[in-house]
């Protein structure tokens, strides 16, 4: 009933917009569309048997405990739903949320690691928005896993391997492997991570392939290192490396 009322109101607004004397600006359009958006639906999500992280339209919205549901109330319609559990692969679904109703879903998560499927298509990736920031990705599933970034012109990227010791290859749009330059010893010694610099000179889609025998890895795809206030002389590197930062072998 309520959704019908909102739909009628929305239709009326659309009619008024259509008869209006001028082309509406985007902001006005957004304001006028709001009543339509209030035709709400809800997703109630269970995960079985493990707790899981839930992403809707690519945005993290919360965790669902295995025994309780995470309720997301949102405009009705189609949503991209991603469910992820630590140490396992992601489940990606598309779901139609009915207007004015609560749709209760249960994702069944297997605990069998060997059944994890690696993504069949490259995973889009982009650099962090700040020199200190970076995209952090990781997986404990089978390798290889491919990430890709499309660039317009020559840029430099840095791969920071936080955990794990996989084989890393970056390929240009023609599939040619690009040289990965190890960063100065001082930088590595200061952080306990491996830093590799690569130049993406050609416009187009470049691919980072994480391969090797498998095992977990976490890496960052970065657009630079922070400016050093002093020197990058390796002799300044912190000599004492905290052992917990060592990558697992």
């Amino acid at each position, binding site marked *: 009933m309520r959704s019908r009322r909102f739909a009628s109101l929305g239709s009326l607004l659309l009619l008024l917009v259509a008869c209006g004397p001028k082309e509406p600006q985007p902001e006005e359009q957004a304001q006028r569309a709001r009543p339509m958006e209030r035709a709400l*639906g*809800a997703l*109630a999500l*269970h995960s079985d048997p493990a*707790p899981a*992280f839930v992403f809707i339209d690519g*945005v*993290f*919205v*919360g*965790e*669902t*405990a295995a025994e*309780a549901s*995470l309720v*997301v*109330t949102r405009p009705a319609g189609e949503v991209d739903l991603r469910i992820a559990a*630590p*140490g*396992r*692969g992601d*489940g*990606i*679904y*598309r*779901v*139609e*949320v*009915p207007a*004015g*109703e*609560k*749709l*209760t*879903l249960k994702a*069944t*998560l*297997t605990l069998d690691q060997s*059944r*994890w499927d690696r993504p069949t298509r490259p995973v889009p990736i982009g650099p*962090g*928005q*700040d020199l200190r*920031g*970076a995209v*952090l990705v990781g997986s*404990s599933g089978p390798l290889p896993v491919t990430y890709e970034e499309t660039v317009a012109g020559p840029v430099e990227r840095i791969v920071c391997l*936080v955990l794990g010791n996989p084989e890393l290859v970056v390929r240009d749009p023609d599939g040619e492997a690009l040289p990965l330059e190890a960063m100065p010893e001082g930088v590595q010694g200061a952080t306990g991570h491996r830093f590799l610099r690569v130049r993406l000179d050609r416009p187009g889609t470049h691919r980072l392939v994480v391969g090797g025998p498998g095992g*977990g890895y*976490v890496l960052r795809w970065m657009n630079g290192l*922070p400016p*050093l*206030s*002093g*020197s990058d002389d390796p002799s*300044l590197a912190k000599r004492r490396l905290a*052992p*917990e*930062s060592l990558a*697992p072998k």
Partner: protein
Amino acid sequence: MKAILTAAAFVTLLVGATTAQSYKTLEILGSEALPEAEAVTGVRHPRPPVYVLLEDGRPLVSEAGYLQLAGEGPGFYYGAGAGARAGSSRASRRLGSNNWGAIEAMGLTGRIVERWRARHPDIRLGIDEISSRLGGFPDYDGDGISDHLTHQAGMNVNFLLPCRRQPEVLIHVGTGRHEELFDPGLFADLVAILVAERAYHLTTNAALGLLDDPDLRAAFAAEDREDDGYARSYRHANGHTRLYLLTPRGDHGDHVNALLWKGH
């Protein structure tokens, strides 16, 4: 009923084409009319998360994809922002807040807090440094080299030494600060919970006597590694957790640093 069937057909069609094997099914349990009371856009969590939520229930997420630990909540408090602790650490002084973590680490932190609450409902757990808003490479002493080695990826969380006699006091073994209040049994309990949640690495000071606890001593075996005079490493029987006991006086003497990564 029509809505149920429509949704079911939609999900079945698309799920079959797009899911990985490990998520074979997205089972539809039902569809019901949305109560008027729920007709607001937002997220209702099954339990209060430890991270900051916006007014509508969505998590606050940084540009780097990190979640911010709340100042306090059921069973925990942010140690670096509390009372005598405020501004006491170099990281927090420099960054304003150093309580941002990766989604998986923050989810595990929530589960650790939950377990702790179940065992010690009257003692809140102090959570200290994690990472800055964007993670990265803090240089606290200004020498051009990044510090705080393990707190760059939002995956390492410091848990303060819990105290029964004077809750939320800062105890720092090796510096003389409230050492008399240190409760080895309570600390061993915390570490047991971290292991149960499959923390990947744990780092603390050897003087805290963690392996004097019989259960932990039985579970951790010394690793055959070169002794660098700084740390001894131990591997847990679960094959996942590694423990580092630092020998310099006072180093990590007020907390245990847990790398929260379930990994394999």
